[in-house]
């Protein structure tokens, strides 16, 4: 085929012309050439060496098929011998190291970089039309096919139809019928950046033998290494760690967005902190996804960041602020700063010639005076004085001394040549100058020992010679010489410790320190009282305005309820006494001796006036209909004055005096009823005690939780400094109302992460019966069993709180404990001489109630042990006494502490009759 057009191609042979601008595909207008032009070299797919297997993608996107770029080999190698040979590209994540074949031709690397940055589509088109191009062009077309293929992979949305030769393995994604419409945008979420666009073409001018060697791929190309060196400064010696540097694709022209190839270098762009890819505001969301590790391309997630960008971590750009809502920006920035992949890799930091491990880095970063802006590199560290500097340089600052990081300091650490040593390090001239200005005697090349406070002594001598930084004006001198001075907080001894404990806990540690305690108990076990006590005990503001308002409403509606019960009782008593009177009236007929004083009007002591009667009827009616809660607000307004009248009415008072006969009335009712008038006023403000007595925590009585930490009281201080750390520990008490949570406890699965369970049982329940006639204690036992054996709480610590001991003590004297069939073998030995024998007990004279408590505790411990084979902790409690609750919760804290230290203890102690419970009972 005669050539219609010819293409001039820049002379590649001319290696000196590095900066020459290349022009491609200029139309040939000269006369027809007499010689034949070679055709484009066809590709034989079979003979292509297999591309390396792409290493496992950290983001397990299964739908992400990585397009593998086939390396290109011409069948006729001689033809190509003087041409550009393309190096096949591999994934930058590949760990296979390829040797670099021709390293001298760096300019060709540059060239191919340039090549690929051209609009390859155009070029390919040109070349496709042009079969009879020159030999060079042939090679060129190969390279362009190659790059167009790459291009295709990157943005198949754009050039999908243009190239038929490209093999794109993720066709599946494209052809989805319904997602397809969005897919063209979508698929760019996963740009195949694993295919590096950087082609290190090697111009192969040497020999055929050289070419016949298999194609090689380099992974760490020259440019990227250069870049790294620049980033870290030339004076820094790189740690001997093979660094994985991810390279972005550079497809479009310089300064354009890496994804849409639009814009120039002045358009605002966001930079990937791993691979340096830049995206315009339209593409950022697509390319970076939901940013679980901050500003990284989706494909870079999980990779360590570019250390040069460490400084910008967590610093939000304006673009992000525009794109996201505030909260999200904060979340992303937090993730960027704190996520594991973005942390400084410890092995990049060498201290005194030793790369650090994780613990050492943590020590270094968490010490009171950490090195500022720690970057990868080699450092020296004088452990005695705390001097810190880059290897081969003068000290840059003074950090906390005595940190156990890195190796021991070398004499030549700072490359000093003064023959004067400080703590075994030969100091630099600048330091010597400083010493001279500080008035330190430096004649005779002395060796000094310098402590962290600046006190120094000569080697082999006992006496302190003085303080280096003690002299006035030394700060100024050091500032002039740009040498560090010890910061104020590095004072020795106790002050240091204080500054440590005073530091605020970092965000990411916070969650670990929160210990969760689950508080459960069946209805009426007093778990809500414990919860409220904890709030009052440990919170500065126990109840917020809203909560108080809610509790106020709860209390008021409860009091209406109690009143209703009273009124109901009144009606009953009235009827009873009326019946009594009628009976007497009947008997009067037969027995005329009884005077007819009070018959006729049918009034008894329990009768009330008409107005009150109306109110009473209304209240009872609403109570029956179950709408009391919804209307009592209006009722408070309307009926508040009536309440006073009602309460003072003799009939109500008479009924109230017989309140023991009203089973419905809870024992706590009298506390409120005595003050009913006050409570039901509009401006009633519940006191803490009122709140404590109120039933329930929240209006809907759902889950409630409170975060608290135990305040440092006087008695805590003498425990010692080791426990000071505990004041940082925060606890979360989660209280769940058992009712309405179902018997099979599906919800328990949500509490996997709690530290322990406090199970609450009311001791006074032993003679109480539920609506269907079962003993409440047995119900509690059943609930206890189901919770203890729940798979979620396997190996969980349980603390049983036996609540309402005050009521129990009174009750057990009158009602025998054997009322509950579970306790039928309770036969306390109450004999006179017991008091004498039992002298080692804490309480010398155990009351009946205490005996009964211990008996019940043992019952539960045995039950627990038979179910789980472990030991149950038991505590006695009087819910209304703050001290008692405080003691119980501190006991819970101790259990959590023991749990951590359990490994140190032998598990041999197995006494059911342990007395740790009783030690907390008072």
């Amino acid at each position, binding site marked *: 085929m005669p050539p219609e057009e010819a293409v001039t191609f820049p002379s590649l042979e001319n290696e000196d012309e590095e900066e020459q601008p290349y022009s491609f595909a200029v139309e040939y207008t000269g006369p027809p050439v007499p010689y034949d032009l070679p055709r484009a070299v066809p590709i034989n797919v079979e003979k292509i060496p297999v591309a390396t297997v792409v290493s496992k993608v950290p*983001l*397990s*996107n*299964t*739908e992400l098929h990585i397009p593998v770029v086939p390396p290109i080999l011409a069948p006729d190698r001689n033809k190509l011998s003087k041409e550009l040979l393309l190096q096949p590209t591999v994934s930058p994540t590949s760990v296979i190291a390829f040797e670099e074949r021709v390293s001298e031709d760096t300019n060709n690397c540059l060239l191919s970089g340039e090549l690929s940055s051209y609009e390859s589509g155009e070029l390919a088109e040109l070349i496709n039309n042009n079969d009879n191009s020159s030999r060079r062009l042939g090679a060129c077309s190969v390279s362009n096919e190659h790059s167009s293929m790459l291009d295709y992979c990157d943005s198949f949305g754009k050039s999908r139809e243009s190239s038929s030769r490209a093999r794109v393995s993720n066709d*599946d*994604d494209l*052809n*989805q*019928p*319904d*997602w397809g419409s*969005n897919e063209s*945008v*979508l698929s760019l*979420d996963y740009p195949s950046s694993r295919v590096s666009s950087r082609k290190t073409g090697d111009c192969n001018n040497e020999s055929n033998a050289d070419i016949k060697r298999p194609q090689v791929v380099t992974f760490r190309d020259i440019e990227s290494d250069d870049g790294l060196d620049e980033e870290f400064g030339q004076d820094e010696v790189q740690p001997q760690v093979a660094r994985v540097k991810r390279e972005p694709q550079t497809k479009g022209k310089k300064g354009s967005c890496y994804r849409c190839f639009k814009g120039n270098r002045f358009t605002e762009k966001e930079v990937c902190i791993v691979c340096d890819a830049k995206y315009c505001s339209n593409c950022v*969301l*697509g390319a970076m*996804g*939901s940013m*679980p590790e901050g500003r990284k391309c989706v494909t870079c997630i999980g990779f360590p960041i570019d250390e040069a960008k460490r400084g910008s971590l967590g610093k939000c750009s304006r673009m992000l602020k525009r794109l996201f*809502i*505030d*909260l*999200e920006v*904060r*979340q992303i920035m937090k993730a960027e700063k704190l996520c594991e992949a973005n942390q400084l890799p410890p092995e990049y930091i060498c201290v005194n010639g030793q790369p650090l491990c994780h613990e050492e880095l943590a020590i270094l970063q968490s010490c009171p005076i950490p090195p500022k802006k720690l970057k990868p590199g080699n450092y020296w560290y004088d452990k005695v004085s705390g001097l810190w500097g880059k290897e081969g340089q003068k000290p840059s600052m003074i950090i906390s001394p005595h940190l156990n990081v890195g190796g021991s300091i070398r004499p030549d650490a700072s490359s000093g040549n003064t023959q004067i040593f400080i703590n075994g390090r030969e100091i630099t001239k600048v330091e010597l100058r400083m010493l001279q200005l500080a008035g330190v005697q430096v004649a005779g090349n002395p060796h000094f020992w310098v402590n962290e406070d600046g006190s120094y002594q000569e080697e082999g001598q006992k006496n302190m010679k003085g303080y280096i930084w003690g002299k006035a004006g030394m700060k100024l001198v050091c500032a002039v010489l740009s040498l560090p001075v010890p910061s104020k907080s590095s004072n020795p001894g106790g002050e240091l410790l204080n500054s440590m404990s005073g530091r605020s806990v970092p965000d990411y540690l916070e969650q670990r320190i929160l210990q969760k305690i689950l508080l459960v108990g069946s209805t009426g076990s007093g778990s809500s009282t414990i919860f409220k006590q904890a709030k009052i005990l440990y919170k500065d503001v126990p109840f917020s305005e809203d909560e108080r308002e809610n509790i106020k409403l709860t209390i008021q509606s409860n009091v209406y309820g109690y009143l209703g019960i009273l009124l109901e009782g009144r009606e009953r008593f009235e009827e009873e006494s009326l019946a009594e009177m009628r009976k007497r009236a009947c008997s009067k007929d037969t027995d005329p001796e009884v005077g007819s004083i009070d018959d006729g009007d049918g009034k008894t002591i329990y009768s009330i006036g008409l107005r009150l009667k109306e109110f009473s009827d209304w209240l009872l009616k609403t109570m029956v209909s179950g709408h009391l809660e919804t209307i009592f607000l209006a009722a408070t307004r309307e009926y508040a004055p009536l309440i006073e009248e009602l309460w003072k009415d003799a009939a109500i008072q008479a009924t109230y005096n017989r309140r023991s006969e009203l089973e419905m009335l809870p024992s706590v009712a009298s506390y409120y009823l005595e003050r009913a008038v006050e409570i039901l006023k509009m401006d009633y403000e519940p006191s803490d005690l009122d709140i404590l007595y109120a039933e329930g925590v*929240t*209006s*809907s*009585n*759902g*889950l409630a*939780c409170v975060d608290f930490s135990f305040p440092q009281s006087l008695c805590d201080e003498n425990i010692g400094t080791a426990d000071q750390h505990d004041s940082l520990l925060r606890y979360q008490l989660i209280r*769940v109302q058992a*009712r*309405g*949570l*179902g*018997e*099979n406890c*599906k*919800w328990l699965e*949500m509490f996997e992460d709690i530290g322990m369970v406090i199970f609450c049982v009311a001791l006074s329940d032993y003679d109480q019966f539920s609506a269907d006639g079962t003993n409440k204690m047995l119900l509690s036992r059943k609930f206890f069993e189901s919770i203890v054996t729940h798979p979620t709480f396997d190996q969980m610590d349980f603390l049983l709180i036996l609540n309402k001991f005050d009521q129990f003590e009174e009750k057990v004297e009158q009602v025998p404990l054997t009322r509950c069939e579970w306790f039928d073998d309770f036969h306390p030995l109450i004999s006179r001489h017991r008091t004498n024998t039992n002298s080692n007990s804490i309480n010398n004279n155990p009351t009946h109630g205490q005996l009964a408590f211990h008996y019940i505790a043992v019952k539960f411990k045995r039950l627990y042990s038979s179910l789980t084979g472990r030991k149950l902790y038991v505590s006695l409690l009087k819910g209304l006494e703050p001290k008692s609750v405080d003691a119980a919760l501190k006991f819970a804290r101790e259990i959590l502490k023991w749990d951590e230290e359990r490994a140190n203890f032998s598990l041999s102690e197995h006494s059911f009759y342990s007395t740790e419970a009783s030690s907390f009972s008072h």
Partner: protein
Amino acid sequence: MSVPELKERHAAATETVNNLRERLRQRRNELLDTDVAGYARSQGRSPVTFGPTDLVCCRILQGHTGKVYSLDWTPERNRIVSASQDGRLIVWNALTSQKTHAIKLPCAWVMTCAFSPTGQSVACGGLDSMCSIFNLNSLTDRDGNLPVSKTLSGHKGYVSCCQYVPNEDIHIITSSGDQTCVLWDITTGLRTSIFGGEFQSGHTADVLSVSINASDSRTFVSGSCDATARLWDTRAASRAVRTFHGHEGDVNTVKFFPDGNRFGTGSDDGTCRLFDIRTGHQLQVYHQQHGDNEVPHVTSIAFSISGRLLFAGYSNGNCYVWDTLLAKVVLNLGSPQNSHEGRISCLGLSADGSALCTGSWDTNLKIWAFGGNRRVI
């Protein structure tokens, strides 16, 4: 009448009810001469076939730090709200896997969430016994939290499930651990009607799930720990229209069939069942034989747009795709290479049926789409 006498009567009545129920079951079995699978086989139908690339995971939504408990799609198909034990609701754009909202909840123990039909607000409920509504358009407060725009309180137990009444943004149905379901009016925050409860014939244990009939939004079904599912009419709250027995464990999930005449259930007994609401018959049991004794619970189900496929998530991390006609598992999305690492707690199909989203205790959500040239069925 004395208490023992009453107890005796009660026992006798219970006995009678149980006898009648047993007779009813027998009678049903007599009448029910075939099930769906048997009939389909006799008609020569063959199961749907699935290639390895027909349903592929195309997005992973990462961002939660706790177990994901619930998810819901918007009707306009590309947004998802998910609720997790880290105490957050996250609203995702399913196409870009972008988070559009992250809502910190006042109570971290959330069990359910729902998108309103217009996509303007989301609802959630949990152990706090309340259903909280968040308007996505409202401004965040100083701490960057979205304020609760409405709290629906009145349940006496945890809120286990909530669903907006289709085409209305002001009504929502919740199910609760207090054995009731409630229809709420969101504008007033009051209960419109209560289904079940103390004095009514309702569930006798925690209600775990509700599903509203898409073709007739006045009826809905509920599944409960009492191993039954009940059909309700919102106009007559006093009693259930029908009670569906059959399961031998807690009914964890119910979902209406796309045609509105059937519904599916998933239970702790490891089976999914298909019931017909007109006849009350159980049409089909979907049960996979397991060698060991440990039967994985069905945690969540969803039907494909045609109803031909039933997606079921199991507590062991499996997610089976059942052919509803032939009762055969045609695909397991939990196969090792792309499975979730924890139990699949929730799943949902987008409104157009083109994508499935699964949420798991491994804190991730995954979106699966029909790949290749496969038609959406």
